[in-house]
């Protein structure tokens, strides 16, 4: 790793850095940290072009090499605006040679993703050097994006890239519990993530509505809690997803949400779930103290039942054996007082002077230590620490082995988390929730009754309005933090909660908005002068969206095609 860093440092000094304000004829998304292409030229890819990898025994890198070799010739990408480059008169590009400093580095948090790429016209050779196999995959992606056309494809030449991400955790959360997604959708999403240099697929596997993952030790959970046999993820499916992610440098972080959001556990284990299968707002009033759940689908694990822990341990152990990922997301969001209070044993506990927070502490202290015993780091939603009513004493969740994911109050909660010494993953619902602003899904709601009503002026969803790509792009996830605090921010995740999304609309909900975050977390959202670069990013994102569509990702358009062919004409200044 030290060797690769040295190499990168050398590259930074050796190559002149091109001004960021200049738009290149062909672009890479996310924009590399450093790219130098002083004289835009291109060469055809030789028909015998080869990617030479020293690492045939690294099956994931080998699979990436084969995939990219095929993509280079099959993609047939024609940019909307034909790149203004001179074709080199010398020779076609013969090969891309990969060197990796340390092939043994596993795909885990903090794995070095830096790489350096040079494509030289005079020799007809390209070189990619990376600290790790995962960095090499990032470099291969960059190389593929510097290639366009067909018969033969052209590749940018005399271009030098030295690249590494700003943040180690760049993720996408997909909720496969509110609605089910076939495995093919998940694979396509991970493929697109790799292309955007995102590296963590946060798989929100279970919730109140369904429990789609089949666990060998607790098969009843999926049998009774999934939407049906056709809507489950078997251990083989999980293996497919994990392996698919590995050959794209995308980690797969499972989330089993508990103790709330567990109504779906009640089919197999009715005794450990309080308030299961009840109407979610029993008094007809949706105010918080009356609710049994944050949304329809009630049920919370009962911390006072020992069987709860038996089931939890079975689940966590199975999940840990299915997912090699070092981070285990254990949920712990939105514990709803009314649901626990509906249970008689809990009523007795509270009557004897116990508190709701003590109940959560019982649950967390037992389950947190169990997950640690599986050699995992625990990730929770911020609620476990910051919920105004039900939260735990920080002493129970040591910052050493606990990471908190923030979703409320924008930068304020990020600050609360890191100032308490925890590492943070940022998923602010004000910026990064992809489902927001799409109306409310609950039924029989009379707010729509009157013609003059503006009750849904925010788009009728709790986190409206819709998060545009610009809003996502411009969010600074370390805003207002000291330098030391900022170091505790691991990165961010856009999140698609699936109350109103499924397979039919998946791609358009995620892309290209997730690409906006991908660039902001990879190389930032500012130019070297410190100015936000959204204006120049618009054209590049148009191109990247166009390219993604060509690769089979149904990303939504951000502008009429007219705008891309008339640079600047669709701007406001």
């Amino acid at each position, binding site marked *: 790793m030290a060797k690769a860093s040295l190499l990168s440092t050398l590259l930074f000094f050796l190559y002149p850095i091109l001004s960021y304000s200049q738009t290149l004829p062909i672009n890479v998304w996310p924009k590399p940290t450093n790219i130098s292409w002083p004289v835009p030229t291109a060469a055809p890819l030789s028909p015998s072009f080869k990617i030479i990898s020293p690492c045939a025994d690294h099956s994931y890198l080998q699979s990436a090499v084969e995939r990219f070799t095929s993509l280079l010739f099959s993609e047939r990408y024609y940019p909307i605006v034909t790149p203004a480059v001179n074709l080199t008169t010398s020779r076609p590009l013969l090969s891309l040679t990969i060197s990796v400093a340390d092939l043994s580095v596993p795909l885990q948090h903090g794995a070095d993703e830096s790489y350096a790429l040079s494509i030289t016209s005079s020799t007809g050779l390209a070189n990619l050097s990376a600290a790790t196999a995962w960095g090499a995959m990032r470099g291969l992606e960059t190389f593929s994006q510097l290639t366009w056309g067909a018969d033969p494809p052209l590749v940018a030449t005399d271009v030098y890239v030295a690249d590494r991400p700003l943040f180690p955790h760049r993720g996408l959360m997909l909720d496969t519990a509110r609605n089910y997604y076939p495995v093919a959708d998940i694979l396509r999403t991970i493929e697109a993530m790799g292309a955007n240099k995102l590296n963590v697929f946060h798989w929100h596997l279970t919730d109140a509505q369904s429990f789609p993952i089949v666990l060998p030790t607790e098969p009843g959970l999926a049998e009774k809690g999934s939407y049906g046999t056709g809507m489950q993820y078997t251990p083989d499916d999980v293996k497919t997803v994990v392996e698919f992610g590995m050959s794209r440098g995308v980690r797969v972080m499972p989330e089993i949400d508990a103790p709330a959001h567990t109504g779906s556990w009640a089919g197999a284990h009715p005794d450990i779930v309080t308030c299961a299968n009840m109407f979610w707002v029993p008094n007809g009033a949706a105010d918080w103290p009356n609710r049994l759940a944050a949304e329809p689908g009630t049920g919370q694990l009962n911390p006072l039942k020992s069987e709860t822990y038996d089931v939890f341990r079975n689940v966590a152990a199975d999940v840990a054996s299915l997912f090699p990922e070092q981070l285990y997301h254990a949920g712990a969001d939105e514990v709803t007082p009314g649901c626990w209070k509906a249970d008689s044993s809990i009523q007795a506990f509270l009557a004897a002077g116990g508190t709701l927070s003590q109940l959560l502490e019982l649950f967390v202290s037992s389950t947190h230590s169990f997950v640690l015993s599986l050699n995992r780091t625990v990730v929770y939603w911020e609620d476990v620490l910051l919920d105004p009513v039900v939260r735990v004493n920080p002493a129970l969740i040591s910052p050493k082995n606990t990471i908190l994911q923030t979703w409320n109050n924008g930068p304020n909660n990020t600050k609360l988390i890191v100032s308490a010494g925890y590492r943070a993953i940022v998923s602010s619902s004000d910026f990064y929730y992809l489902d927001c602003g799409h109306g409310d899904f609950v039924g029989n709601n*009379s707010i729509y009754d009157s013609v003059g009503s503006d009750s849904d002026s925010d788009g009728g969803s709790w986190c409206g309005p819709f998060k545009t790509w610009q809003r996502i792009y411009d969010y600074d996830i370390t805003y207002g933090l000291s330098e030391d605090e900022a170091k505790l921010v691991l990165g961010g995740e856009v999140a698609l909660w699936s109350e109103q999304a499924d397979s039919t609309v998946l791609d358009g909900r995620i892309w290209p908005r997730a690409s906006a975050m991908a660039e902001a977390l990879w190389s930032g959202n500012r130019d070297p002068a410190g100015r936000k670069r959204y204006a120049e990013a618009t054209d590049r994102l148009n191109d990247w969206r166009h390219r993604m569509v060509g690769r089979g990702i149904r990303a939504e358009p951000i502008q009429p095609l007219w705008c891309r062919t008339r640079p600047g004409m669709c701007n406001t200044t």
Partner: protein
Amino acid sequence: MTTSSLILLLVIIAIITPSLIHSTPHPPINVWPKPTSISWLPNPNPNPNSSYLSLSLSPSFRIFPLFPIHLHPPLRRALYRYHRLLLRERHVPLLPPPTPPISPAPLSLLLLSVSSLSAPLHPGANESYLLSLPIPTHGAANLSANLSAATPWGAIRGLETLSQLATAVPGSGAGDGAVVVPAGVEIRDAPLHPHRGVVLDAARSYYPVCDVMRTVRAMAHNKLNVLHWHLSDAQAFPLSLPSEPNLARRGAYPTPFPATYSPRDVRRVLRFALSFAVRVVPEIDAPGHTGSWAGAYPDIVTCANKFWLPPGGPPLAAEPGTGQLNPLNPETYRVVRNVFRDVAALFPDPYIHAGADEVNAACWDDDPAVRRFIAAGGTHDQLLEIFVNATRPFIADTLNRTVVYWEDVLLGPNIKVGAAALPPETTVLQTWNNGPTNTKRLTAAGRYDWQDSDEPGHPFNYAGGNGGSWCAPFKTWQRIYDYDILHGLTDEEAGRVLGGEVALWSEQADGTVLDGRLWPRAAAMAEALWSGNRDETGKKRYAEATDRLNEWRHRMVQRGIRAEPIQPLWCVLHPGMCNLVQ
């Protein structure tokens, strides 16, 4: 017992039996949009366990027209399509209701009668139909159903209804896999509003013909009857016209595919739409929104190819993409007439939409001739009037079409013409601003109107929330469903409202996301305009509509329309549990 008392007794049975039958709830009829009237025929041989029966569809089921079908090719194509759909769809609802016992005699025939076979698919065409599915009688080996309609177009609506009544029986056991329809039901149906449409903007983004056709098909499944095809705008002119080929050649998107609609493409769409009883109203927007004409005719377009927000000056266009036809250039009218003559030759519909929205003074002022005209005391209103007076009579009188304009032409707010230039007999205005207020202004002025209101109603210029779009927030299906397009009108005024259209402007939509943007939200308007958004007691029926719309969305997805989900599947499987009030 005398003969007369026997007769009396029979009569009494006939009166009592229906109430006995109806003491158990009848099987749900999940047809979207909900039919106006559904009645159940008394079962003469009630089974002690169930008052209702199902009919299985015979594998040799046929649709038999009681008239020479070869005289009506579009209806013949519709019969073919619906026959195939009936036998092959094999739809299983997400929450299959219990299937009433299946009658031993299958349904083998649908007798179709149409009283006026020659009725054209015109505005106000009669779409009513009567569909009755028989009660099996003892000994009958084969049963036939009846569909009668005033016109072929009503017959097509009835066929759609029949297709939605058909479901496959899931699970194992007797009748497993059979396609069944309810027995003994009679549906009398007709729309509340004659004009129920979708605006598809094919100029900001191009939609391949297959996307347009899929949209037409989805419209027919929802009994929508007008595709308002917005075919030209500042950004592109995708329609290839024989007399003016350069407009598309120089104005359509160039790459990477031929992003045009050839006359052949148009005829394909029209033929397809006709067999689904969907009218296609073309819109050529002018004099605003015409920047794309400048490629072929730079001289007739003012302010073309300029930056839309000049520093220090007023905007040159409502959005990026400048250019307006110059009313003072005689060449303008030569081109416009060629365009509309070709459009009228291609599109048989009695309506032609001629746009006239968002005319911009600064864009005209960019032209020296216009500046001279203004300096000599002329007004922008006069300029628009010159344009309208030189083009509208040509479309109305020479081409014999009703001219549709956006409301702007009369209501401004900036540039407008006097009412005298827009004779109500041949003018329809489409409203899109100020919700019910502008509808009232238009209908009070005696103009026929259809709705396309962005506030609080329909279009989906998508960006949702206050997510930075001019017409935010996102229009949820509930908001669309609940909009009463006659709100605040007198009966006389209401009589002038032809109906409504949902609109998809395509700045941020194209083929990748088309279905999810339109459906099922357009379905919400489809029901509101077909049978209303209220139950018999006048209460809005959005609550019960939620469950039905979930099922209908599921069925649309099965039919290849990528409609977006409105709730988690859990809600569908747990009826009522996702309501705000139980």
